[in-house]
């Protein structure tokens, strides 16, 4: 892929010649898009230049079916705001360059995204600060004036009262399309969600869609440098992201601690302080049950793509073996039906 990237950048970088690509390697994770890192060097008017990049490329099949243009727009919407994101460089819808559509963004070095490192003693002094900042950023995401951002060009907002219907309908559809066996637990949760809808949000705002520990870059000092993985971003009820961050699967082995870093009540307080609102606990609970259903929709999508041979990503087989039942257990607990 080095030669293809070099050819592409030679056209995209103004006045560039002698473009060379080095250190190309695939980054672990990225179950929805292939994520690769590489260094590029080139000359402009005889002056040597270089930069580190990330390319996010569409896979043959994915855990989530998402629109790269939407992801690109959400990243772009937060450039220059208090929500840290990498700078977007190029969106390429044409598959001929790398064999699939992709986008390229700047690479932020010197950070990590490891989910469990934040639980180690090295972060004892900064862990609470990370959590506080994590939920303050979430509040900032939800109140972005998106109407004047790139988001407005790629999607419209649902009416406040329709946020839950749109999301639940989408993920129920994903379960309909992808389940390999009947899902009596997820279906019971969906019936409960339809029978007990949440109140409309005070405002409709950007929703990251996968806001959790594991999807941001942080430094050894505990500074959050970038919020990543916006592939499920949309407009909706900002509470959706808060609830998603509380899902059991993201506790990383530390029960009762979202992301393994903060008590749930402290997280809610940090969010409330930053957002200047009081979280409706019943609505939050609705979105937590919804999050479990959405999670099941994701795992079932990966399971079917692997079963049908559309994906050879082992992560899809692993999540279906490992997480579908775990997600069912989480649904039962969220509904007060756990063991």
């Amino acid at each position, binding site marked *: 892929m080095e030669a293809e990237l070099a050819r592409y950048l030679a056209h995209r970088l103004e006045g560039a010649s002698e473009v060379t690509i080095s250190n190309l390697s695939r980054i672990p994770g990225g179950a929805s898009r292939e994520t690769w890192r590489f260094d590029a060097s080139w000359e402009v008017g005889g002056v040597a230049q270089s930069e580190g990049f990330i390319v996010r490329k569409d896979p043959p099949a994915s855990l989530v079916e998402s629109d790269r243009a939407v992801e690109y727009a959400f990243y772009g919407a937060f450039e220059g705001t208090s929500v840290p994101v990498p700078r977007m460089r190029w969106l390429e819808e044409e598959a001929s360059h790398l064999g699939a559509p992709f986008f390229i963004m700047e690479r932020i070095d010197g950070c990590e995204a490891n989910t469990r490192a934040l639980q180690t003693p090295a972060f004892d002094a900064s862990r609470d600060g990370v959590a506080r900042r994590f939920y303050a950023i979430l509040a900032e995401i939800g109140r972005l004036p998106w109407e004047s951002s790139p988001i407005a060009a790629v999607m419209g907002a649902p009416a406040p009262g329709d946020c839950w219907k749109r999301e639940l309908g989408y993920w129920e559809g994903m379960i309909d399309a992808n389940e390999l066996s*009947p*899902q*009596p637990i997820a279906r019971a949760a969906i019936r409960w969600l339809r029978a007990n809808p949440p109140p409309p949000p005070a405002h409709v705002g950007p929703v990251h869609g996968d806001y959790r520990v594991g999807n941001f870059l942080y430094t050894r000092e505990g500074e959050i440098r970038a919020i990543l993985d916006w592939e499920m971003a949309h407009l909706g009820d900002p509470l959706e992201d808060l609830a998603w961050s509380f899902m059991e699967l993201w506790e990383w082995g530390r029960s009762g601690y979202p992301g393994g870093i903060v008590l749930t009540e402290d997280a809610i307080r940090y969010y409330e302080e930053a957002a200047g609102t009081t979280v409706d606990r019943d609505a939050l609970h609705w979105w937590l049950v919804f999050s479990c259903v959405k999670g099941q929709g994701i795992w079932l999508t990966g399971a079917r793509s692997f079963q049908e041979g559309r994906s050879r990503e082992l992560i899809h087989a692993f999540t279906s*073996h490992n997480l579908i039942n775990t997600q069912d257990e989480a649904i039962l607990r969220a509904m007060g039906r756990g063991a």
Partner: protein
Amino acid sequence: MRPDPPKVLMGVAVALMADVAPGLSAPFAMQSLGIAAGLLGMAAEEFDRAASRLVEEDRALVVLFERAAPVVASQGLASRLREAAARLVGVDLRVSALQRDNDVLRALLLELHVAIEAQPGADARALEEAIWDELRESTRRRHFSGVR
């Protein structure tokens, strides 16, 4: 005598981690190898228990359906609940065949759950609780050791 499949699968998983992983340097390759080893471990566990798990669950579902048949208001559903026991006399013991039978019974459980939720009365509520008990038990049967 030869090593049984779970031992073989676990042996491959251990060999991958002990003999192959140390020679890898690319993070993505290391992650893929770790996932492959984990999958082999789960496949080993499932190989040994799958038939037993499916048969145990099918039997539990049929018992539940026999209890439900006189309670449900729909006579059509009641008939199908009574007929479900026929699923237990299949002669094809391949896991794929047992899974197909289980899918049919779990779909019927789902239909029963929907019907009983909408039905008033103490008998219906008690049956609903029994369905939730079975759903909880179904997750226990599918649990992998080593997964919290």
